[in-house]
Each structure stands twice: as C-alpha cells, then as structure tokens.
C-alpha cells in the first residue's frame, strides 16, 4: 500500500475540445448538447465549459433552460468522433506512464503507478508529468487526484478542478474526505443521498462516525460499501478492463410518439444492437429491461429476468416487445431504451437442445454488419 492510485479527469472534456478546435470559442461559454432551437429545443446539456458554468449551467440541465440563462452562449452539437480521437490521445499518454490503466469513461481513468517509481519518480511527479504532457500534446487540462485507493483518488481529483492536482495523504484518507458532502462518495446518488439526509447525515464523516450496521440495515450490502468508503477504505484494484454490468441503448424521438409500429421497430433495432455487443464481448444476459419516458417526463423501467442465460437476438427481442406491449397506453412516448444485464461470461453448454442454428444466424448477421454496415437489416427491423 502507498500513494499509488491516480484518478485523472479531463476538465469539461467536450467543451474543452471544442475550444481547442475553434480558437474563437476560447474564454467564452461553450455548451455542448442538444440543439436549443431558439429556446424551444428538446434534450439536455452534455457538457458546459467553465465559462458557462459561471452562469449556473450544468450537465443534464434541459437545453432550453441553458438557452434561457445564457442566450449568447456558444451552443454546439456533440461531435463524438472528434472527442473519441482526443480521448484516445489522452489515454495513450496515461499508458506511457503505467501499464495498469482502468478507463472508466471517455474522459476519466484510474492509473496504478505502483512499481513504476524507478522509471518515472513518485506518484506526484508522475501526475505532474502526465498533466504537462496532456497540455503540451492536446492543449487540454487534466485534474488528477492521488490517493492510496480508487475511491479517495476519485474524490481528490474533483477537489481542485479545473487543472488541479490534489493529494490525499497516506493514512489520512478518513479525515481527508470527512468534511465533504455525501454526494462526493462514489455510488451515493440522489436517492441514496436523500435517504441519508433524512437521517441527518450530510457529510461523509457523519457516516464514518456511525455504526456500519445502521447502513447495512438501510441499504443492504451497498450500505457496507458506503460505510467502508466513508472511512476512506476501498479495496478495489485498478483493473485494465472492468467487468461490463449492462449493455444499453436509448433513443429520444424527434416528436413524442404513440405509434406501436415505430416503438416496436425501434426496440427491435436496439435488441439487435445490444445483443450484438454482448456476443462481441462473449457475454450472456439473463435480464432484459426497457425504459420508457413519457411526454410528461415520467419514466418507467420494466424488466424480465430469465432462469437461463442467452446471447441471441430473438430472446431479447421478444422479451422487450412483451414488456413494451404491457406498458404502452395512449400516453405518448418521448424516449425508449433497452438494456440487457445480469451477465455470465461462462458459457455452460447443454446436453440436449440444439441452439446452434439460431446462434449461427446471429453470428452471420454480425459478420455482414461488420462488412456492409448497419444497412444490413433483420426481418422486421
């Protein structure tokens, strides 16, 4: 154990890339997200530059609200190909300093620097080198947190954003995070935070000071995790490829719809997409879930869990259609989503059934799609 875990987070990534690519955007509020359409736009803010954040604009805020607050801001549609290219460049810089990188999203990663000190010096000097390299090579800024474990490193990187370097001192993990708001804890979302506030807990230290059992009784095994994290303890290691928990796909319609035909064909193409991804990753799913957001923004998710594992298109498709049929009414739908989860990597073969033919069809279509692209269709999609 030592100060070996770095959490590196690119500052306001999408907006910063836009500012790098378009010098005229620099020092101005840039809002990456949906089209504001003069204030009538649908969809949300994806990333706001620090200049835009000064106006109070945040990620996930409705784009129409952002437009209302800051009508003179620069509103741009996301250019994912461009961001991916930048992300890859930054991740490659991280890889120069350690073989053990766990990329958790397009703009953040954990870097385990244990064992590379002879090559590059201690964690702080490595972090500084990484920050310099990223700035020189891409003009982006990276905030880095250094700690003895992942959870504390992630909290630390967020403290002096943007362009910060924060060290959580070894042995001081518990004190370091104790004054922070509970939402800074990894895995404490809005609902969880509300429950904690209801019992008078606002700061991380207040969790650490209470008995673990109290949280286990409220949150189950997650309560144990939260309590451990609040004490600055996190045993999870930096692992190259994190386990995939679910594969999902969502679509917001141009206009709210109640067309069963459109909903069905959308969900079928999603079933095709997610199961293809599962097959590519050699995963088998047990649970199929759909998400429906109605025009009044109420959102429901409904799922079906099987007793067996599958990786074919047909099972996900028919389950999703069944869930859809059971939950559509006259209410118009704004967004539809499909996810598969509860994965097993191990493929247990069966003695009797011959499922090979179904799989062969799926795999053939997968190959065709790689060769000819998405225009290769399935029947009914």
């Amino acid at each position, binding site marked *: 154990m030592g100060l070996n875990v770095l959490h590196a987070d690119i500052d306001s990534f999408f907006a910063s890339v836009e500012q790098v690519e378009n010098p005229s955007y620099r020092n101005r509020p840039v809002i990456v997200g949906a089209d504001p359409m003069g204030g009538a736009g649908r969809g949300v803010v994806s990333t706001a530059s620090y200049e835009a954040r000064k106006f109070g604009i945040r990620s996930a805020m409705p784009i129409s609200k952002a437009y209302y607050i800051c009508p003179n801001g620069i509103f741009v549609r996301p250019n994912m190909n461009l961001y991916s290219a930048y992300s890859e460049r930054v991740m490659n810089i991280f890889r120069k300093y350690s073989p053990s990188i766990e990329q958790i999203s397009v703009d953040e990663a954990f870097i385990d620097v244990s064992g590379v000190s002879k090559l590059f010096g201690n964690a702080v000097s490595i972090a500084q080198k990484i920050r310099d390299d990223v700035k020189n090579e891409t003009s982006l800024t990276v905030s880095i947190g250094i700690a003895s474990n992942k959870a504390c490193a992630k909290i630390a990187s967020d403290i002096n954003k943007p362009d910060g370097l924060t060290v959580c001192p070894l042995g001081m993990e518990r004190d370091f995070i104790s004054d922070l708001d509970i939402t800074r804890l990894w895995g404490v979302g809005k609902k969880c935070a509300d429950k904690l506030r209801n019992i008078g807990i606002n700061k991380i230290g207040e969790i650490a000071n209470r008995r673990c059992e109290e949280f286990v009784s409220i949150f189950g095994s997650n309560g144990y995790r939260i309590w451990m994290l609040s004490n600055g303890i996190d*045993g*999870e*290691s930096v*692992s190259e490829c994190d*386990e995939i928990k679910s594969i999902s796909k969502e679509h917001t319609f141009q206009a709210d719809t109640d067309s069963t035909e459109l909903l069905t064909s959308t969900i079928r193409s999603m079933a095709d997409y997610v199961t293809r991804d599962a097959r590519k990753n*050699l995963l088998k799913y047990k649970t199929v879930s759909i998400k429906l957001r109605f025009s009044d923004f109420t959102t429901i998710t409904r799922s079906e869990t099987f*007793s*067996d*594992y599958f990786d074919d298109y047909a099972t996900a498709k028919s389950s999703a259609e069944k869930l859809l049929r059971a939950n559509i009414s006259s209410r118009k739908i704004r967004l539809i989503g499909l996810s598969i989860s509860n994965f*097993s*990597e*191990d*493929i*247990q*073969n*069966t*003695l*009797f*059934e011959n499922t090979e033919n179904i799989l062969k069809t799926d795999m053939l279509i997968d190959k065709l799609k790689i060769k000819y692209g998405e225009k290769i269709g399935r029947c009914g999609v």
Partner: protein
Amino acid sequence: MKIEIDKDQLLKAVNIADSVINIKNVNSILSNCLFNVSKDSVEIVSTDNEIGLKTTIDSVSDGNISFTTNGKILSQVLKELPKGSVILDIDDSYSISIRSKSKEIKGNLKLVGTSKGDFPDINFEMNDNLIEIDQVLLKDMIRKVIFAASTDTVKPVFNGLFFVFEENNKMAAVASDSRRLSYINTKVSSTLDFKGGLIIPLKTINEVYKLLSSGSCKLGLMENQCFFKIGNTDIISRVIDGQFPNYKQVMPKDFISFSVLDTKKFTESLKRVMILTKEPTYKIILNFTKDQLVMESKLQDIGETQEIIDIEYSGNDISLGINSQYLMDSIKEIDSISFKISITGNMSPVTITPENSADYVSVIMPIQIKQAD
C-alpha cells in the same frame, strides 16, 4: 362421536398427510385434511389437486363419520400432549374437542372442523399394473439421481424423475436439468408396462422419499397417474406430460481418456477449490496431465486456488471448465471408495461412475473456457 387413538401414531399420520397440502390453498377446503373414521381405523386424506395421499391408522370409535380440519393446527396441538391415547370428540357441528387420556391434564381444547362437503373424491384403488420394489432400493435410486432434476419450471419434463424399463426387470431412473444428467439402473422383481417411461413430479418423489424405510412397497401406473403404496400410506399423483429427451444419446459411450480417483481425497480437494467460485456457473478448471490432476478456481478481486492430486492418467493433456457444484452433487452420492471420471473432449460431456459399476452414471456438460483461463 368419540374416537380413541394413540397420540404418536396420529401425530405422525397427520404430519404425513399435511405435508402434501399446498400452503397457497388458504381458506379452501384443500387446506384441511379429511378424516374418514370407521369403527377400527381412521383414514387421513389430503391433496393439492396434483397429489392425493391417504394414510390409515388404527383407532377405536363408536361409529362412522367424515370431517375435515386443519392438519397444521391439529399437529401442533398433538405435539404438546403427553404420550398415550387421545380422545377426539366430534359433535354435530363438526367441532372437534381434543383431550389426552392422561389424568394429569385437565382442560379441553376445541378445533373448528367441517363436514366432508366439497372435499374431492379421490380414488385410491389400484389396478394390476404394478410392481413390488424394495423400499431401501427405491430410496437409494431416488437419492442418487434427484439432485440433477431441475426446479426451474421452464421445461416441465425436467421437473421430475423419469422411470423407465430398459429391459425386463431392469428399471432405470433418470433426472436432468439439461446441463447435467444422472442415471441409475437397478434390477427389480418384475417388469411394469410403463408405456415408454413416466415422469413423476419432484414433489411426489419427495413425499415418497420421506415415507420410504424398510420392507417392500408398490409402484403402479394407470393412464396419466402413478401410485405408490408404502406401508399404511397410499399416494396417487399425476405424471408430467411430455417426452423425456433421449438420455441414452447424451451418455457418452466412447471416451478419449479416463482416470480413477480416490473419492474422499478428491471431495476434500474439491471443497477447497469450490470456495473461490460463484454462481451461476461455480466454474473450476480441471487440468489433466500425465499422472496429475490440477484443479483451479479464481475470483476476480478475491483470490485464486490450486489443488494438485496425483492420479493415474495416461491420456493427452486436457483442460476442462466445469460447474463445481454439479461435480460435488455427483461425487457426494458415490458410495465406492474410488470413482472413474471419463472424458470425451473439452466441449463434450464428462462422465462420472463408481469405479466398478456402469449402472450409476452422472454426465456433466463442461463450461466453455476462454484462452485467458
């Protein structure tokens, strides 16, 4: 109407009958046991609409009567009474007053009963299509295969035990959940016309298993029902519709290699390796190399284990992924001090048999292992 019965006998009989009752049948007459009282015996009948059970005990009474009452409550009452006789007094409104013959207990306890009313008529008459079979033998057959049956209701044919006569006087029992299969073949006194075999539901098998002790019992078949007569208890049950898959076809006959292992030693090693496995597949890797078996398991972020056992093995090196829980289930029921594990390839069934018997066979389908394993 007064009935005098031995308390322990009545308690045992009520418990046997009540175990068939489906607790979901609340407030229906089927949540009760039916008591058919005659001068010298009481029949206790229960059913969940799939299984009917009748058990008979000796008693002395002053007439005939049929009534129903809740078996669970009656059982609790009887449990707290002293040994010896109990007197049940049933009045015209089917209220049952229960007291011990023991002078030491003063007081009275009354349970609500009902008339036979809508309690279904169950025909326990047997036809001649039956065999006599030793209870110990049948119990052993059930124990050795039942673990492989599926409790998951997706494929009903796997929710039971399949009984079939393969040749004269040779009865086989087979259970499977489609990933593994257990098979046992035993010599019995006669042959029964099973019409291609019958699948007896797991619940029925479990009831039968509880009743089996010593002596012989009867097993019979008529239309889509099977029946058992075990001691003073008769069970009649529906059989599961559908065709049990061709089990013979999935039991390998040709092997590429095999090894004989010490049952106890292997079990101990397996227990240690199993610690670092997780549901749903409880995967371990078996690596067979010359004269050595290396068993491995690994859990991300938790740890890994390795056990090495010296064995006699002369086949080609092979690595198999296997569900350790399945393996343990099969090994546990092996009575011999050593067993044989036969291999047909890393994507084909693994076969487990006692060393010197081909009559008891477990087949387990391997788990695909990735290169990284």
